[in-house]
């Protein structure tokens, strides 16, 4: 078969030289395409994942932490007491209830969900109940939606404000398909300005994962 090709080439006069140049050009183009293609190599996946989530405000003065791995993508944003006061004041909370929140918990804004982008990828389940903040030698559980519902009931807070607060908190447990995510606040009974390590837990399909994000700082 190869001989037949050789034989055929002989009859083409100038064609072999031209073809060789064309062949080299094709290969060069193919090589160049491979080198510049954004889909080749691990950098593609990394660059997609490292882009800051636009759902969280960013800019000068905004402090954020990012994590991506084993199906989870996460962005945490430091919220200062004044951010929290502005948010709660706008939702109908009394000044007393607003100050109760500001004085009793450290709050992070968050955007979290599945890092998977292909259909058929395993569901990612964020298990907020198992998360722990490590501070001052203590392991501290987050104050969840269910905990806050009891707080507002006990304080007799405005129902509309309580509803807004519930939905503004990150879900206690949520399952995310590929590209899914939620936005919400996470609260820990830790004083303003404290530096913590955050232990996060999630499922990637049937696999259980955890990670420790170090050096988070509560806003003050």
């Amino acid at each position: 078969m190869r001989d037949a090709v050789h034989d055929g080439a002989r009859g083409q006069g100038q064609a072999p030289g031209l073809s060789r140049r064309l062949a080299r050009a094709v290969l060069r183009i193919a090589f160049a395409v491979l080198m510049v293609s954004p889909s080749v190599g691990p950098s593609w996946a990394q660059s997609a994942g490292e882009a800051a989530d636009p759902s969280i405000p960013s800019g000068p003065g905004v402090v954020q932490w990012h994590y991506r791995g084993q199906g989870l993508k996460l962005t945490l944003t430091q919220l200062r007491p004044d951010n929290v006061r502005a948010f709660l004041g706008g939702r109908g909370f009394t000044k007393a209830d607003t100050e109760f929140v500001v004085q009793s918990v450290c709050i992070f804004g968050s955007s979290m969900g599945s890092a998977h982008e292909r259909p058929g990828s395993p569901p990612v389940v964020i298990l907020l109940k198992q998360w722990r903040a490590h501070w001052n030698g203590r392991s501290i559980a987050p104050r969840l939606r269910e905990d806050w519902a009891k707080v507002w009931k006990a304080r007799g807070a405005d129902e509309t404000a309580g509803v807004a607060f519930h939905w503004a908190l990150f879900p206690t447990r949520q399952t995310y398909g590929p590209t899914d995510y939620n936005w919400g606040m996470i609260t820990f009974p830790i004083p303003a300005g404290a530096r913590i390590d955050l232990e996060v837990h999630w499922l990637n399909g049937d696999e259980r994962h955890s990670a420790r994000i170090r050096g988070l700082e509560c806003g003050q």
Partner: protein
Amino acid sequence: MSLRITPAVLAVLAMLSLGLIAGLFAAASGPFSPAEAGKMRRLLQPIPGKPQAPAFRLPDTDGTMRTLEDWAGKVLIVNFWATWCPPCRKEMPAMERAWRKVKDKGVVLLAIHVGGNEDRIWAFLTDYDITFPVLIDKTGAVSRAWRTIGLPTTVVVDPAGRMVLKAIGGREWDDPAILDAVLALRGTK
């Protein structure tokens, strides 16, 4: 041993090169090209079991009570949102663009605001020039009944009233891939 380059060899080389490129694309992004992988970021998740959408009775921004039955037989895109939720705000312009594309095609886009505060909702809708129907779920009860856990969440209901597709988190709702998936539900029995 020398290989003479003929048009036939050239063609084979070109095909091999293209095959190599395609193979590497596949290795990097699974069975999808980058364009397809990009589309996946914009697609919707199927809802297992296709449960019936729960009935509701909620006021719109004018105070008129609306029910699910008002849109019976249509494909419904139901978005659960709040003015204070950043990704909800971000996807609203795309929802409005989507609405303008599908409103005459048997599809209704409906936003349900979780929680009250009508003044802020009004201001938001005016600022963003939103023209699709917006209802207010003051207690969050309807949102819970629709299995919404976090914001934003959007559910697509087929003409038979079944919840068939879902997006947790924002999407570019006017993306052709999403609109095609929604329009394909028309006529579903």
